[in-house]
């Protein structure tokens, strides 16, 4: 679609596939398709202790589930919360799709979507997602993860990275302060707003949307905090923007409000290495 100024916008919903004729597939095609579909299944791998409990029908007693989707959201949790060493890794989700890279072998897959549980307060669960989850896997991810959690008194907080280029507003953004936070919550959520609500026509997509959809139809209290930033890659200013989103949890989680520079260095440096534009 071209705008008044002639630049071309790619608007996804308008990309309509051609009329799909129901092709008579031969058996081999179908087998390949089935195998691919099987490979694309989202798999949850829990610790022996957790999976034992799940097998016997005891779901996670979870009061707060915090999900971080994207590099900055995940590293925000790493810097401000997970450094306190009070957290156990309880499992991970493996997601295979067209963007999965076999680069670091098994390790990259295991670190892309990890679940942590608080040692003293096991009803706090955190999940960091840094990998790409394909559109056909999002729904399944939400179904499978929430199937392991007890829904009573569950509160879900999602932190999500977004590009400010995707933010639509009638005013010019040049004067306002980027990065900024917007929220979107389900009907059952009742909490004091810490930031403005997401204005129409802006929408939430990807994993945060899948989680919100699931929570809305299953009457779970959930809120998404979407951070619009103009920096690609990990950045301390963007990370700090998420701070107000977790103030509500201040009582139950010890937040390290002023992490040392060393901690930041550890989580921010990787971006520099990847860019080889000006060696």
């Amino acid at each position, binding site marked *: 679609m071209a*705008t008044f100024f002639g630049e071309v916008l790619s608007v996804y919903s*308008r990309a*309509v596939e051609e009329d799909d004729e129901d092709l008579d597939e031969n058996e081999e095609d179908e087998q390949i398709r089935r195998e691919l579909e099987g490979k694309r299944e989202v798999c949850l791998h829990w610790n022996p202790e957790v999976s034992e409990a799940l097998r016997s029908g005891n779901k996670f007693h979870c009061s707060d589930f915090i999900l971080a989707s994207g590099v900055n959201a995940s590293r925000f949790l790493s810097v401000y919360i997970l450094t306190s060493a009070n957290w156990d890794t309880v499992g991970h989700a493996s997601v295979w799709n067209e963007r999965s890279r076999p680069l670091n072998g098994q390790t990259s897959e295991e670190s892309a979507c990890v679940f942590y549980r608080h040692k003293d307060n096991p009803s706090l669960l955190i999940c960091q997602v840094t990998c790409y989850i394909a559109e056909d896997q999002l729904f399944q991810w939400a179904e499978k993860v929430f199937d392991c959690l007890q829904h009573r008194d569950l509160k879900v907080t999602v932190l999500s990275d977004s590009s400010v280029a995707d933010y639509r507003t009638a005013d010019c953004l040049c004067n306002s302060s980027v990065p900024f936070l917007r929220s979107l919550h389900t009907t059952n959520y009742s909490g004091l707003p810490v930031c403005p609500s997401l204005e*129409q026509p802006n929408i939430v997509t990807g994993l945060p949307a899948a989680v919100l959809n*699931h929570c*809305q139809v299953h009457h779970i209290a959930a809120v998404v905090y979407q951070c619009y930033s103009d920096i690609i890659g990990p950045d301390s200013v963007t990370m700090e923007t998420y701070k107000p989103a977790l103030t509500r949890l201040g009582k139950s989680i010890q937040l390290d409000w002023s992490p040392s520079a060393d901690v930041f260095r550890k989580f921010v440096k990787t971006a520099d290495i990847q860019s080889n534009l000006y060696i």
Partner: protein
Amino acid sequence: MFIASEKSTPSFKDFTLVMPAVAVGNVGQLAVDLIVSTLNMNRVGYVHTDCLIPMAGNNPYATCKEDSEEIHTPAEVYTAPELKLAVLQIRAPVIQTKSKKFRQLIVSWIKASGFSRTVVLSSSHAYQRDDQQLQGTPLRYLVTPSLLKISADALKELGWREMEQVPAFPGLTDANTEPRLYIPGGGITKGLYTDSCAEDVPLAVLLLFCSEGDNIPDAFTLVNHLNDWLHLLDNPSQQPNKWKIPTSWSLLFGSGIPPALF
């Protein structure tokens, strides 16, 4: 899978269902938006399925600040009980490999809910019309045999044009090749129609030939066309702005222009 938003399950018995097909220019979806916002319809439930790409946003039909904070999902059902009208709005594309499953889900839901008739609002690529389709109105319709039985007179009175069958291989005159129904860019439209024919579901398709771009005028054309049949609004053509444009239609072409440009 339909999930009611309130505790009680709504009854759709003898309701008319209007739904869009996600198609070229999103004309059907825009037209459905106009119906929901103009008639102030109430949301009664969601179609929660893995066939649609997840998305969420605040109330697309907000009229004031108070009702703007209300989450909305990819597929939702609205009703206007006094008009015996239900509307299914679809806000996200169908996942390509799951379009067949989605069609089946919709058809079985239509059958189970007991809708008296279903109208699918759709569109098709204007550039793929053949010679006979180029002339006259860009609007077409299709009805399944079971709807034709009950609505034949009404359709005759309207004088609408039925969607033409096109030759399978244009230019080739072979008596053995049967002309076929071809709706390029129509998404699930054709599949939904053929499934409904096979399952004896009373269903009509109203479609418009259009191209991508600013499709708001197309949406008005299609919704007025539908209104000629269903009479949702009285004489909307005399007052062209009687349909209410929802707030979510703002900034369709991106954000505001930076003043520093000038």
